[in-house]
């Protein structure tokens, strides 16, 4: 067999930075996201150190405002949203459908450059002048009071939005047009259904964010009355427009995570996903209904009671397809031949953490409780359970699952399992106390607080320290495995997906010959019942 694969076809920098190979672009995204993740993580670390005591010991209030804004902006737009689609998705979508590449390879490379340009501009704004509006850029603070770097940061996000739109477009066209013969819609892996739903949101919602940020800049620079009521604007319009994007953005983050979990649960239970069609259509249902619930971020903003009731009702509705997915994963596990490899540990952690995050979301969908909990740590804990406990855990699970395919190397199962358990433990210790803090009334975005809250904050900061170590661990053992790990076979998990039918790492054009699909996905029949080979 030839040693030539996508990593060894050419070693020059030029071959990397001008590549149109989806696998190499995925690696470019991967490296960029690690960079952004650690910048956002550093801000989080500073926040948790500051909050270990009730006084302002480490930073002033101004710096604290800049810290949590930096944490939010970087993590949301430059890590969570692009993470699974742009790294794992970019790598495996063509492999999973038996294609040579995405439909628009050069557009794919351009997306990465646009993303980096946006990221660098935003980073410049954050580091040069600092932004203190919070990641939401609420007016009138962003248009009247904060410094001008807020517009520079918004410009960076505006630019990065185009990267999202182009990636979404690329995935939609690829999934429609480039499927291998025999790969019908109901034979698609569920990860692709979830990425398809995510792409639809990316294409439909991101332009609204771009327009919103443009309107914000217009009002700030030209005094056009869009949001400011003194010059004829509507003070709630910004929040309507912002959350019309940003609530679906939560599903941009979590839907790909759910897709990864389908692959993991099925593979490590050696069973077909229970209720395949339900799970597939639930992805689309979540994407669609997710557009109808943005007003639940605005219950105390002054919007009308009728609007709040409608949004509250719709928020309960969107929980239904999410719950169906959780039930179907547990049903898939039932009587499965379960293997507790590292990806499976991440998947199980995801199911637990996402369930807690989802159920506390129902608390917040209740008008009465939301009034009490708005802008408290309850909300902080809730969305971290979804976005970090859910999405980041799924990302790590997917990364471990496809790592042998990406690098052609096996990692240390011992360290991977240890990291997975530590992440689960550290995460819960960090964020569960925040539910209690929030229920007791500690507001978010404050760096000094009454001493009676300290015990929960100390627990939370201690958990954050464990979590930080656990998040650093994969950097070492995966980094080591990429260069020195054992060679991976083509199909280390003994899984039936098309991506496992080619060598690890794959050749430049993925498959030696066009694969033909003749059966439904996740057919863990006698042929695929053997043990995974990484243990």
């Amino acid at each position, binding site marked *: 067999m030839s040693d030539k694969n996508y990593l060894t076809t050419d070693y020059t920098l030029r071959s990397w930075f001008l590549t149109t190979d989806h696998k190499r672009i995925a690696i470019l995204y991967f490296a960029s996201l690690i960079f952004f993740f650690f910048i956002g993580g550093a801000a989080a670390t500073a926040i948790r150190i500051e909050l270990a005591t009730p006084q302002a010991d480490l930073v002033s209030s101004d710096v604290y405002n800049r810290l949590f804004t930096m944490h939010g902006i970087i993590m949301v737009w430059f890590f969570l949203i692009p993470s699974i689609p742009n790294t794992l998705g970019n790598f495996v979508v063509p492999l999973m459908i038996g294609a040579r590449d995405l439909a628009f390879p050069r557009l794919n490379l351009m997306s990465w450059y646009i993303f980096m340009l946006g990221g660098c501009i935003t980073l410049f704004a954050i580091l040069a002048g600092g932004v203190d509006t919070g990641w939401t850029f609420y007016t009138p603070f962003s248009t009247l009071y904060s410094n001008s770097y807020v517009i520079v940061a918004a410009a960076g996000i505006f630019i990065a939005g185009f990267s999202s739109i182009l990636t979404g477009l690329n995935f*939609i066209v690829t999934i*429609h047009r480039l499927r291998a013969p025999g790969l019908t819609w109901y034979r698609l892996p569920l990860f692709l259904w979830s990425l398809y739903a995510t792409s*639809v949101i990316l*294409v*439909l*919602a991101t332009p*609204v964010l771009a327009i919103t940020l443009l309107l914000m800049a217009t009002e700030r620079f030209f005094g056009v009355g869009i949001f400011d009521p003194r010059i004829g604007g*509507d003070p*709630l*319009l910004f929040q*309507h*427009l912002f959350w*019309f994007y940003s609530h679906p953005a939560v599903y941009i983050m979590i839907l790909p995570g759910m897709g990864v979990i389908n692959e993991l649960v099925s593979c490590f239970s050696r069973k077909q996903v229970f209720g395949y069609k339900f799970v597939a259509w639930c992805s689309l249902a979540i994407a669609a209904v997710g*557009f*109808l619930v*943005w*007003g639940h971020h605005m219950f105390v903003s*002054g*919007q*009308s*009671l*009728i*609007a709040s009731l*409608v*949004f509250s009702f719709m928020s309960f509705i969107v929980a239904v397809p999410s719950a169906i997915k959780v039930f179907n994963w547990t049903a898939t596990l039932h009587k499965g031949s379960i293997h507790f490899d590292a990806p499976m540990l991440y998947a199980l952690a995801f199911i637990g953490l996402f369930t807690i995050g989802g159920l506390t979301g129902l608390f917040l969908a209740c008008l009465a409780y939301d009034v009490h909990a708005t802008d408290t740590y309850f909300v902080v804990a809730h969305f971290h359970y979804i976005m970090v406990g859910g999405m980041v855990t799924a990302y790590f699970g997917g990364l471990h699952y496809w790592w042998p395919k990406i690098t052609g190397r096996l990692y240390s199962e011992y360290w991977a399992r240890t990291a997975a358990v530590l992440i689960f433990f550290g995460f819960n210790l960090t964020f569960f106390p925040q539910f209690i803090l929030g229920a007791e009334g500690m507001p978010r975005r404050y760096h000094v607080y009454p001493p009676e809250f300290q015990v929960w904050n100390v627990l939370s900061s201690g958990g954050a320290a464990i979590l930080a170590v656990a998040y650093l661990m994969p950097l070492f053992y995966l980094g080591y495995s990429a260069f020195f790990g054992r060679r991976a076979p083509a199909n280390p998990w003994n899984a039936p997906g098309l991506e496992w039918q080619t060598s690890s790492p794959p050749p430049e054009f993925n498959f030696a010959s066009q694969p033909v699909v003749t059966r439904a996905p996740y057919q863990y029949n006698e042929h695929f019942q053997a043990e995974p080979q990484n243990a």
Partner: protein
Amino acid sequence: MTEWRPPFALVGAWLGLLVLLALTVTLAYVPLGAANAVVALGIGTIKAGLVAAIFMELRHRSGLTLIFAGAGLFWLGILLWLGSMDFLTRT
């Protein structure tokens, strides 16, 4: 000199948009009461239809493209509908 001339459909659509624009401005000064908004929205819809069908060439596209274009319009409708519902029912 090239002999290229813009297709009649494009010129026609452009002229149509100008006529509709003139109609919008004129009718804005005619006191129709509540019907003013309805008329303005109706003309706006026709304009949008012209742009979508002629300039965006959606009239020649496949069903799938039309579904995606329609989806964009549908979601825009949701944004406007739920956003205005809040505005119209504020106390």
